[in-house]
């Protein structure tokens, strides 16, 4: 039932007003899913072995996370990095601000970090007089447009090239009406190169952090993380505590899975391993909890922390493909976002686990074997128990439970429903019936199956 407060459904409705655009969005993402399939199948049976290894390595890591965090910290400090701990988003943002303030840096470049999106870092820094430029091309596009990214790997997947052309004409003085991707990318290259060369502060995310060696691995196709970090005086790397893996050689498993799952490439163009700061440079690593330790305590949901943020679940999800990332109103959208976000705020994100058909495609493509669709179902139960289900849904579910548990009442209700549908079709063929929105209602049969069976098949007995 489309109830008030069912944010995802409301936002998805808006997205779906443009049917052609939805089809384009859907086809594009499915095409990316197909590229992922080709890449996965090219590894034959190795692919499933890799998934199993990755899943076990992450499960092991989560079971010894406190120890690995301390191992990582010790190694990183020995390497000359400074390690900070942030219990939540506010602390994380303040740590970033104070590091930059200490160095009198008021302009920075930032490469992709979904954690910083989760913490709303950009807004906080801007409010504190620090200018942030996102250097990933997709992120720069949505930044210029004043939007949030709609996909964790493909931030502006919902933008058409003509629209980007218009945006760049407005902000980067590209020729009006030009929608040539090469020309637009070149314009962005020139514009951002200047930022890399002049800004002294660089923030990057972290794809993997190695407990054994204290190194950080950052994967990009564009090279923007490196251009920022290597030309800066201060490199700040922001990471969730779940990004740890035990040993350097474990990267062999994850780097073979990540890009293939995300875009179907065998590997990202750059897989950069930062171990020590450059001479004369400072390297700051911020370890962020922000609800992760709370999720870790939940037996049903802790495995969601294995996520390596590949986005494969987004690309395959029929709901994501046809509702778009912004319908999820959270930093990490899609299926994985729908099992991570309710942990951050049960009330705000209560709608997300219901934005699913429970088809299970997400679990099928997840490189670390998170049982996403099962967790979506379990979250529904938790949310309903905690009272976050919309009132109308609760009433409807209770009515259904009552009806289905009483055979006599069920027969009676069915008989009257069939009669009403035949005599007064407008009772179901109206705008208030969500099933009628894009479907025809079936013709009400003259009799129920039980009635037909009694008449045609059963021998007279004590019925």
């Amino acid at each position, binding site marked *: 039932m489309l109830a008030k407060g069912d944010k995802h459904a409301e936002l998805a409705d808006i997205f779906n007003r443009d049917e052609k655009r939805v089809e384009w969005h859907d086809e*594009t993402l499915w*095409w*990316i899913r197909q590229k992922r399939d080709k890449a996965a199948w090219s590894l034959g049976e190795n692919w499933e*072995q890799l998934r199993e*290894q990755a899943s*076990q*390595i992450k*499960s*092991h890591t989560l*079971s*010894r996370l*406190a120890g690995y*965090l301390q191992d990582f910290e010790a190694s990183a400090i020995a*390497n000359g990095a400074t390690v900070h*701990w*942030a*219990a939540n988003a506010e602390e994380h943002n303040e740590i970033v601000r104070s590091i930059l303030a200490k160095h009198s840096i008021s302009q920075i470049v930032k490469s992709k970090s979904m954690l910083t999106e989760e913490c709303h870092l950009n807004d906080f820094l801007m409010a504190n007089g620090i200018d942030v430029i996102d*250097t990933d*091309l*997709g992120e720069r596009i949505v930044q210029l447009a004043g939007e949030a990214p709609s996909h964790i790997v*493909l931030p*502006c997947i919902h*933008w*058409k*090239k003509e629209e980007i052309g218009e945006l760049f004409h407005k902000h980067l003085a590209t020729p009006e009406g030009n929608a040539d*991707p090469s020309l637009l*990318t*070149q314009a962005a*290259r020139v514009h951002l*190169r200047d930022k890399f*060369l002049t800004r002294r502060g660089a923030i990057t995310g972290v794809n993997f952090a190695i407990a054994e060696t204290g190194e950080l691995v950052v994967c990009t*196709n*564009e*090279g*923007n993380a*490196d251009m920022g970090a*290597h*030309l800066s005086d201060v490199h700040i790397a922001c990471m969730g*505590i779940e990004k740890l893996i*035990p040993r*350097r*050689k474990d990267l062999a498993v994850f*780097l*073979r899975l990540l890009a293939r799952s995300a*875009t179907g*490439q*065998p*590997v*990202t*163009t*750059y*897989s*950069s*391993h930062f*171990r*020590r700061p450059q001479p004369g440079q400072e390297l700051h690593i911020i370890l962020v*909890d922000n609800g992760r*330790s*709370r999720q870790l*305590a939940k037996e049903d949901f802790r495995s969601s922390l294995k996520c390596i943020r590949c986005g494969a679940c987004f690309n395959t999800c029929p709901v994501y493909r046809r509702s778009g990332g912004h319908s999820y109103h959270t930093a990490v959208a899609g299926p994985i976002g729908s099992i991570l976000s309710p942990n951050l705020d049960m009330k705000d994100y209560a709608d997300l686990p219901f934005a699913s058909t429970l088809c299970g495609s997400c679990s099928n493509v997840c490189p670390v074997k998170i049982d996403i669709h099962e967790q979506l179902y379990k979250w529904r139960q938790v949310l309903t128990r905690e009272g976050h289900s919309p009132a109308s849904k609760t009433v409807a579910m209770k009515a259904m439970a009552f009806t289905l548990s009483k055979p006599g009442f069920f027969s009676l209700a069915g008989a009257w429903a069939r009669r009403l549908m035949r005599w007064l079709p407008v009772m179901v063929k109206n705008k208030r019936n969500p099933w009628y929105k894009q479907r025809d209602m079936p013709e009400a049969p003259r009799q129920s199956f039980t009635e037909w069976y009694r008449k045609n098949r059963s021998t007279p007995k004590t019925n």
Partner: protein
Amino acid sequence: MNSREKILQQVGQAQPPLVPLPDTPAAQTGKGSIEEFEKMLQAVGGRMLLADRNEDLGKKIASLFPQAKRKLSTILSLPDSLGEGGIPDPHSLEDLDLAILSTSLAVAENGAVWITQQETAGLRVLPFIAIHLVVVLDANDIVPTMLEAYEQIGSDNYPFGVFIAGPSKTADIEQSLVLGAHGPKSMTVILQSSS
């Protein structure tokens, strides 16, 4: 209790009973296939050229990039090498047309080469800031997969290392692949062998 202590305590209490770390699968023996390396390198937008070990590399590279005005190489035997004068300020490389490096590890399954701080002579930005990148490699240095690559890297104490697979690229504009997003627009691997 500061945040560090609070987080460690919460994580310590939350984490489940120990799950064993799986065994690493055995690495393959034998070299990586040159054909596969070339195919994958092309798939990621790079190209591979063969060179005899006795060939004049300097001449070969110059002929590949006749328009390149400013070049920098970390291969001491080549012209434009980072020999004298020490390491320039990375910011001064903004107009670098061509960067030439050599390395001793490449991966067949994805066309990547492994470059550490040593291969860049301390200039980390070198393989990113140039418009064109050339990497010289020996045919014997190709391993089959990332598993063998990390086995070879072992516990090397590099301050920085990077796997580079082809030129910089993006498909952020309606999935159209464009080479040269922020890093090099082209990448050439010169494979040396005694043919």
